[in-house]
């Protein structure tokens, strides 16, 4: 083989892409050709240099973060889908298709009027002591069944919050974070919304309040604890856990961190629980033996390497 043919094979030789007979041809050639031999040595060195400098594989923690974010997005997509499929199934109801256009128009108009009659009420709460009042069609007061809380706006500066929620009819609510009713609604949003995005919005509304008086509010705290421990969505659990860190630590909160550390199936969340324990330790809170024992166990037995490292670091700092 001549040099021209061999030169085309040298790069492939350096990256292990040649068949055995081609390797032999190259080896035989370079025994006699100094130039090709030098060229091959350079290419082998380049190949070795590149491989020695290849970026490290992305770490497990980044993978977990990417997965969390993806699962959140898929949840949101599925929630949108189910709403659209309800609309679609309504429109494809067979009797509706058979109606002639005029009747179809009248039918749709009737539906619209019915929805309008169930109506909306705008309520302004002026006093924090006043219960939310809703009136039925006979002007009688009824106790509201609250669900599907939606956030419209919030102002961290003033504490004003605007929400929508479903009773037997849609109700618009405007109040202040210092109101008990506002806190009740937000707590419900965090635990009862069907949409994880709405739960996270609720948690962020709590997170961004400048007035920290809510940190004494049991409803808000319990809602966050419940969300952090048991929400199906990892994004919700993560945000609830982070926001719990703004509360004065007490036995309930520490128990929550420990329970998350031992039971949550997501490694990033378990690491966050250790971080929260680290923060309260740095604020002067005494870490008891039970807590140390649980964290030690994680340092030995957790099936995630990063959790183990983090737990071990916590214990080492304690010694």
């Amino acid at each position: 083989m001549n040099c021209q043919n061999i030169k085309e094979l040298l790069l492939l030789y350096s990256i292990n892409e040649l068949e055995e007979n081609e390797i032999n041809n190259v080896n035989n050639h370079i025994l006699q050709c100094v130039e090709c031999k030098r060229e091959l040595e350079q290419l082998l060195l380049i190949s070795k240099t590149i491989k020695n400098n290849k970026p490290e594989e992305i770490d497990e923690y980044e993978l977990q973060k990417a997965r969390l974010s993806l699962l959140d997005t898929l949840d949101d997509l599925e929630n949108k889908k189910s709403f659209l499929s309800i609309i679609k199934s309504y429109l494809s109801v067979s009797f509706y298709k058979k109606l002639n256009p005029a009747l179809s128009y009248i039918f749709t108009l009737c539906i619209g009027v019915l929805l309008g009659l169930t109506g909306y009420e705008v309520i302004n709460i002026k006093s924090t002591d006043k219960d939310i009042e809703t009136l039925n069609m006979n002007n009688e007061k009824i106790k509201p069944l609250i669900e599907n809380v939606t956030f419209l706006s919030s102002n961290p500066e003033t504490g004003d919050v605007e929400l929508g929620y479903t009773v037997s009819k849609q109700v618009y609510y405007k109040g202040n974070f210092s109101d008990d009713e506002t806190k009740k609604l937000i707590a419900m949003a965090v635990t009862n919304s069907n949409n994880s995005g709405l739960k996270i919005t609720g948690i962020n509304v709590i997170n961004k309040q400048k007035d920290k008086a809510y940190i004494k509010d049991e409803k808000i705290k319990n809602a966050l604890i419940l969300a952090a421990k048991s929400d199906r969505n990892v994004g919700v659990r993560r945000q609830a856990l982070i926001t719990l860190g703004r509360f004065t630590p007490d036995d309930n909160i520490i128990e929550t961190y420990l329970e998350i550390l031992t039971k949550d199936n997501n490694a990033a969340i378990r690491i966050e629980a250790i971080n929260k324990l680290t923060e309260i330790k740095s604020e002067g809170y005494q870490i008891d033996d039970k807590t140390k024992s649980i964290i030690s166990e994680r340092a030995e037995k957790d099936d995630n390497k990063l959790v183990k490292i983090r737990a071990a670091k916590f214990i080492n700092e304690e010694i």
Partner: protein
Amino acid sequence: MIESEIELIKLAQQGNRRAFEQLIFKYDKHVLNIAYSFRNNSDDAKDIYQEVFLRVFKGLKNFRFDSEFSTWLYRITTNICITYKNRSKKEMFDSLDSEINNGDEKYSDYMPSDSKTDELLIKNETNKIIENALKLLPSQQKMAFTMKYYNEYKIKEIAEIMNCNEGTIKRYLFNATHKLQKMLAPIMGR
């Protein structure tokens, strides 16, 4: 493709979310590594990861089993990597990195205690040269390069994933390697 994977794909195509997650979590780390090798940036890699799996989620019903699932998946990955453009993002939440990592460390930053300063300097300099050289490459060439040298695919596999012939991949590698050879020459003492 093994039987159980075929079943998993069929279930996922029918909308079974658990099956979908099980399927993608077999390959997602590799997808992330392909993206990371290409972009050398973890935020970009995670962006690409999201886009890849959203596309898979929406397009899985069109998968006809005429190739390995992994080939189809990595083809989507390489296409998105190649067409990916930097974009600034509004973060919905505060970044967790500073909290999780206590603000000043990453777990990958634990250096072996016997690293020599000179070797580190040379390694850093070489890294920079390689990184700069890769930035100058056209995306297709860069993808072939990273798939070969960083992800260790064979040329035949790269050609299948990138949906072109082996000759084209060889040409990409030839051009990329020679550019790199010129740029590395000063520190390799040629």
